[in-house]
């Protein structure tokens, strides 16, 4: 009886696919198994990577595809190889704008500005050039303003499986929260 080493094969193809990742369908096709079987192999591997401390990688599902990535707890070692981050962090303005778009999409610039209370052209430009948002259509009415929505890169950038995985938007602001709120103006630099 010949046993096929599915896990070894899956590791090979995921390694080769790199950060392009593979969808469940692609994995099933390459392994020539059905998707249920493929999902079973994936889950098993995810579990093994996680529990084995001699492994430095994980099998994660981000933005709809499966891919290998290093374990977070090894980041400090990886940082030693780094000169400077390849991409800068998003500014507070960009993050706020992105949050509004993520939860309210599709949404126009004017609507975003009404919520933020300030002009928002620049953050929109930054977000578009970083492929985190895109124009998804035009609003009805006189101006036919552009409507914005989030992209697949948005999911990738924040490590989300899909848009449904967004953390819920706080519905009610509690009084204590007002006090405890992390004051961005005084937020620590440590996160750099």
């Amino acid at each position, binding site marked *: 009886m010949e046993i096929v080493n599915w896990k070894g094969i899956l590791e090979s193809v995921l390694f080769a696919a790199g950060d392009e990742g593979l969808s469940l369908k692609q994995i099933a096709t390459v392994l020539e198994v059905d998707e249920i079987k493929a999902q079973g192999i994936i889950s098993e591997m995810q579990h093994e990577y996680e529990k084995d401390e001699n492994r430095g990688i994980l099998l994660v599902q981000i933005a709809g595809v499966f891919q290998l990535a290093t374990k977070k707890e090894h980041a400090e070692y990886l940082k030693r190889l780094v*000169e400077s981050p390849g991409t800068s962090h998003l500014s507070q303005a960009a993050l706020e704008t992105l949050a509004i778009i993520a939860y309210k999409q599709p949404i126009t610039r004017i609507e975003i500005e009404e919520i933020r209370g300030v002009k928002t052209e620049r953050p929109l430009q930054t977000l578009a050039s970083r492929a985190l948002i895109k124009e998804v259509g035009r609003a009805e009415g006189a101006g036919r303003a552009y409507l914005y929505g989030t992209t697949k890169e948005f999911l990738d950038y924040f490590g989300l499986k899909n848009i449904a995985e967004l953390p819920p938007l706080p519905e009610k602001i509690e009084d204590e929260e007002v006090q405890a709120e992390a004051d961005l103006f*005084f*937020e620590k630099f440590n996160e750099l």
Partner: protein
Amino acid sequence: MEHNEYNVKIEAFEGPLDLLLHLINRLEIDIYDIPVAEITEQYLIFIHAMKELKLDIASEYLVMAATLLAIKSKMLLPKHEDESEEAFSYEDEEDPRDELVERLIEYKKFKEAAIEFKSLEKDRGLMYTKPPSDLSEFTKDTQIEKSDVDVSIYDMLAALQKLMRRKKLQKPLATRITRQEIPIEKRMAEIIDQLASGGRKRFQELFPVHDRGHIVVTFLAVLELMKRQEVHVEQEQNFAEIFVTSQKGAGKVGNR
């Protein structure tokens, strides 16, 4: 790693709503019951301080100042509660603050969501990936992907983003430049010293160093000292010079 002192992020407020939330937070005010007179005063001091520093103030800040003043004057109008014939209409009359509170709460939701996003961004940044391997050895030279190109400029930019994220690791070992952080507590102590020796100071005199970080820290230090009532800030009339004086008996800095 955790310093208990404030470390200042060199970023301004994101707009008048952000500034108001900041003031509400620092003054420990109930957002659902804002003392309009107090918050308006604080807001105007802030605006005047910016003016004093000859800084451009975005028009949105001035619009908000006008809005606050309008609400304040509405709040001052007599309520007519005793006049029975009109009582019913005032029962369900709107609080002049309602619209502003609604906007603040709506904005605050997204501001909090942005904090959440920031932590996701950081978390994701801890994971490193690798580029797709070159698989040309597994294909015949003649075979070229035949399907139609079906991508947009966004796909191209997204690919570039992935690349740049990855590139982080491929640079040689080198030292990183870290920004110098100025603890706000230290600057507060300096200001107190300065005021103790010289009495009343012009606001601008507190900004001897033309460095952004230093300016922001000084500004925040003054605000914090005002809140702790260790200094008094006065302005004789609108757009006149602002003076800062030390409050008597407040010699100690650093304890809250």
